[in-house]
């Protein structure tokens, strides 16, 4: 791939299922719904893994609110991440499940409940050598 030299640093979503707005308050999770079988996917899709349709897909905006399906607390992490932290699967209101970190509470089992209500927010989490910023979504207790 050809790299363009000396381009202005960009702000990019860390994952394709995060759509960035003008401000962080306008960021949202995106999904796509198979028009053939109605299956809802997190993020964009070209093909349907359930019914094998080659589309079309309807782009949808996923909810920012959800409930904790399951959680774990990671104590041994990769070097650039501060451990311990909470990793969880969130079932979004209206459909779709995402893997995420829960922040804003101490990473202790007694602070976590199955089905607890959480809300999404986004923040810059890293920067590459070219100065591009990466934004990720996280959840905190609602």
């Amino acid at each position, binding site marked *: 791939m050809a790299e363009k030299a000396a381009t202005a640093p960009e702000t990019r979503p860390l994952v394709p299922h995060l759509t960035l707005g003008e401000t962080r308050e306008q960021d949202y999770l995106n999904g796509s719904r198979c028009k053939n079988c109605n299956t809802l996917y997190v993020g964009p899709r070209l093909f349907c893994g359930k019914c094998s349709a080659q589309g079309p897909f309807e782009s949808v905006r996923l909810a920012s609110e959800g409930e904790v*399906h399951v959680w*774990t607390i990671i104590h041994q992490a990769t070097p650039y991440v501060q451990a311990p932290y909470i990793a969880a699967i969130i079932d979004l209101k209206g459909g779709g499940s995402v*893997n995420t970190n829960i922040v804003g509470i101490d990473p202790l089992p007694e602070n976590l409940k199955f089905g607890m209500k959480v809300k999404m927010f986004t923040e810059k989490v890293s920067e*590459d050598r070219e100065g591009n910023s990466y934004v990720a979504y996280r959840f905190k207790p609602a």
Partner: protein
Amino acid sequence: MREVAIVGVSMIKFGRYPDRDFSQLAAQAGLDALKDAGAQMKDIQALYSGNLYATSGSGQRVLQQMGQTGIPVVNVANACATGSTALREAFFAVASGAYDMVMAVGSEQMGKQGLLGSRGDPATSLEGRVGSYMMPAVFGMAGMEHAREYGTQTEHFALASVKNHWHSTMNPLAQYQKESPLDEVMNARMIAYPNTLLMCCPTGDGAAAAVVCSMEKARQFTTQPIKIAASVLTSDPFVDRGLTLPDINTLTRNAAKIAYEQSGIGPEDLSQVELHDCFATAELLHYENLGLCGDGEAGKHVASGAPWIGNKVPAKYQEDVEPFADKTYKPKSKAVVNASGGLLSKGHPLGATGVANVAEIVWHLRGQAGDRQVENSKAGLAHVIGLCSACTIHILTK
């Protein structure tokens, strides 16, 4: 399809072999399996080589070590089910009539890189920023799904480690042969809740091999051929959340159903099971997935003593188990689970695991398993799962 048998098996002790190449580990296992079979390289008509970390051509490099006879080589990579998928290819090659005698070998040299390793540019890595994708997270959360559904306690999961670590003291080929009472397992360093360090399998280097042939040919080599009564491979079907949290259950249930149908053997007929306990949480989920107990009964099952060697909890651990046992519980299957010590003790050199599990069952069926011998073993099941996602089940009988 004709009947297929295993006439030779071997595994090298799993551990660290920094001075050996993976192909030397594999060749050692392969030559040992030939010796066990009473066969020679010239009898082998094809090689199925399972390895994940070596680049393509792994099997050819194994032959460069143990005998370049010019036979066809198929290199197999299928996550943690790599070795067992190689064995399944060997099974079909013989069952179809294409070959009379072939070899499956699984090997891996992992060095010190564990299951916690994460590669890629730190700036764009998702790990720890958008949840966690490492194996400890996946299997921690898989255990938590069981806790959510059935109220399973961390101690229930931890008992699988107590059992398997005890079993390993009777297996000289296990990477670790160290017992751990319940409080030691519970108080070990937390890796990913609810799995502590003693509830995670070690990684390392290792190799295992099996000589596979037609039942007719087998009788020329041994009076004790072991029959492959079922050989099944599944992948993960579409389920809700499956693309977010890998589903280790559905594909195992699907594979078990096919394997029981294929063999005409049910969970109640099994003398023993070697299942994929990469984490202690996984062992309990697979009791239910393989039908050894009913759904939600896994905690009671491990505490009942049924899956322990001798079908009972040894006296020294009875105090540990007592609070979690249900005296009214009747186990559906009395299959001893992970007599080898399981991945939790034996180690998990990815490509070798699936062949080593089958070797373990073969030794028990022949009555060659030493101190850990499951008494009068008649039928055994070997289960492996790799993300995302491949599941193999082999059922072996005398």
